[in-house]
């Protein structure tokens, strides 16, 4: 008969600890319920606040009795930070829930095959659709990508590969640029391009403003990705006689490929729902317009905005359905970016 030592984990919760935690939770709920029933305080807010206070008081009191004042403080802070996390998550849960609840009734098949040229937002939901908005958003995003991806990646390359004397200021300016309000970007394109040159709303104007908003996101994420590429690779390229250009183009960029994709996708997620410059610049037509250089162009944010402001219940359902589509788009992009970024250095 052999004796095997069973390792103990003194920090792990024992079953009596678990029972105690459960009792505390139930106790605080009971106290909350009692106070709400007895005193004139009413409503969800009262429940939430009282639950928090009673739980903090019970755990704090217990710790004070068993382990003294510092432990009591620790217990109170523990419930405090937990409530902070709950307050952070609560809004997003509420947003996703309401958008799903209100948006799903407005989703139907013809939403993706028809546009709004023959319907107004106040018509029954079955008529008209989102086609013009989806194609418009896609066109503008693609145009913005064509302009912002080269600039963003070149900026990141300057910061990582050349790292010249302007690196500090440029990093600072890219940070500053990411804080430019979207409406200011819209006003800038309005004053610099739309009024003096084209004098008409078009999808191109919108995508120019989106480019400005997208460059900093792409530049900053790409910079982080390029920094993760091991220096050995660059040195190997140089040792084989490659010029810096060949090293960057043939070794560094391919190695960072999936990370750069992440940067681009995060950039798209940043601008897909951008509303303010779209309202100023695109004119928001109701018809599918494949030409971004001529004529007003619809987009998802504009469609949502227009339906939301039309006011009738049908229009509101349209707005929620549009929001649902937009939210799903952002969610898919985000999940895609996450999946790609888990393997930042590939091949």
């Amino acid at each position, binding site marked *: 008969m052999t004796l095997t030592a069973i390792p103990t984990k003194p920090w792990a919760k024992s079953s009596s600890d678990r029972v105690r935690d459960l009792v505390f939770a139930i106790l605080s709920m009971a106290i909350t319920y009692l106070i709400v029933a007895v005193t004139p305080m009413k409503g969800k807010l009262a429940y939430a606040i009282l639950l928090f206070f009673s739980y903090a008081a019970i755990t704090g009191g217990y710790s004070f009795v068993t382990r003294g004042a*510092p432990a009591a403080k620790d217990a109170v802070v523990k419930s405090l930070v937990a409530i902070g996390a709950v307050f*952070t998550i609560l809004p*997003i849960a509420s947003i996703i829930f309401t958008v799903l609840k209100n948006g799903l009734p407005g989703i139907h098949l013809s939403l993706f095959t028809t546009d709004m040229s023959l319907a107004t937002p106040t018509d029954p939901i079955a008529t008209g659709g989102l086609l013009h908005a989806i194609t418009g958003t896609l066109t503008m995003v693609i145009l913005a990508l064509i302009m912002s991806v080269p600039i963003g990646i*070149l900026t990141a390359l300057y910061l990582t590969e050349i790292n010249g004397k302007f690196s500090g200021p440029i990093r600072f300016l890219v940070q500053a640029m990411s804080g430019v309000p979207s409406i*200011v970007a819209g*006003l*800038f394109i309005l004053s610099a391009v739309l009024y003096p040159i084209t004098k008409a709303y078009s999808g191109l104007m919108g995508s120019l403003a989106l480019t400005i908003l997208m460059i900093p996101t792409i530049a900053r994420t790409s910079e982080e990705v390029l920094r993760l590429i091991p220096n050995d690779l660059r040195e190997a390229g140089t040792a084989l006689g490659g*010029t810096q250009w060949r090293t960057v183009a043939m070794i560094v960029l391919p190695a960072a490929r999936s990370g750069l994709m992440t940067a681009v996708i995060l950039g798209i997620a940043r601008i897909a*729902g951008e509303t303010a410059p779209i309202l100023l610049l695109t004119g928001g037509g109701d018809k599918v317009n494949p030409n971004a250089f001529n004529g007003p162009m619809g987009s998802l944010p504009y469609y*949502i905005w227009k339906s939301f402001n039309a006011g009738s219940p049908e229009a509101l359902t349209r707005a929620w359905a549009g929001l649902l589509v937009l939210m799903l788009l952002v969610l898919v992009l985000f999940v895609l970016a996450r999946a790609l970024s888990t393997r930042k250095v590939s091949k």
Partner: protein
Amino acid sequence: MSSTTLAPSPREISTEPRRSDKVFRGVVTGGGLSSLVILGLIALFLAYRGYEVLRQEGIGFITKAEWAITTDDAGNVLESHFGLSAMLVGTILCSFVAVVIALPVSVFSALFLNFYAPEWMKRILVTIIDMMAAFPSILFGIWGFLVLMPSVEYWGKLINKYMGWIPLFEVKPYFFTRSPFIAGVVLAIMIIPIITSISREIFAQAPLDRIQAAFALGATRWAMIKAVVIPHGRSGVIGGAMLGLGRAMGETVAVYTVLNIVFQINWHVLLGAGGNVASLIILKFGEASPYEIKALMAAGLVLFLLTLIVNALANLIVKTTGKSGR
């Protein structure tokens, strides 16, 4: 018969970059300077378009609260008064309310993520919070208007009932709908992910040896946080809060949907009359005459400079703490 062997001339060794490299470096540097060019152009064009209005109004553009324009039938401007003060006060009020609400929540949740949450929960929560930062502002705006506003209005009434003796919370006339407080709460929800992720990164840089030393000396978790993490991360968190402030100041659509814009300076947070520079631009843009557009451009310039300054200060603070790590 002569056999002369041609000795190969030695290759010249130089550190001079090849032409391809020169081109490459030129192109990359050009791309890198684009952010400078774009920011410069923004300031230049907005100043150029708004110059006429700025010159006419002078300092009154920032200190006066009136926004009115009268034109004759032909569209000529007869009289115009453009002043941004009510909007500026409103912008500052909304974004300060947002930061005051968001800062404690974000710091607590960052502490929770770093020092309390188990690893699996941390991973999920971080993903959700990052995702929230990428959500479009129109989503927050419409959700805030239809879902959040009734509750926040009720909270506003509660605050007024019990703390109305503080001048800031005074409400006269008794009107709570679409107040700066509601806009501030919506903005707070939008900037919580930003401040949380910055605080989380700063807290994660707290020196591990000191954390372990604190635990070894018998500190509780809170005592460790108070002694090590907070002194280390304090100024970084302030920088993060200022980044959130900058974001809140420039936010347009979300504020516009929940704020009642009134051209009168109002410091009372709960009263349903506020102002916001960005929302003003959206509000007036639709029916603005060419001259009023110029005034809006000038307003855009003011907003641009304001956010630029706040952001620059914030980045400076975050950067210096990231490096020093006392």
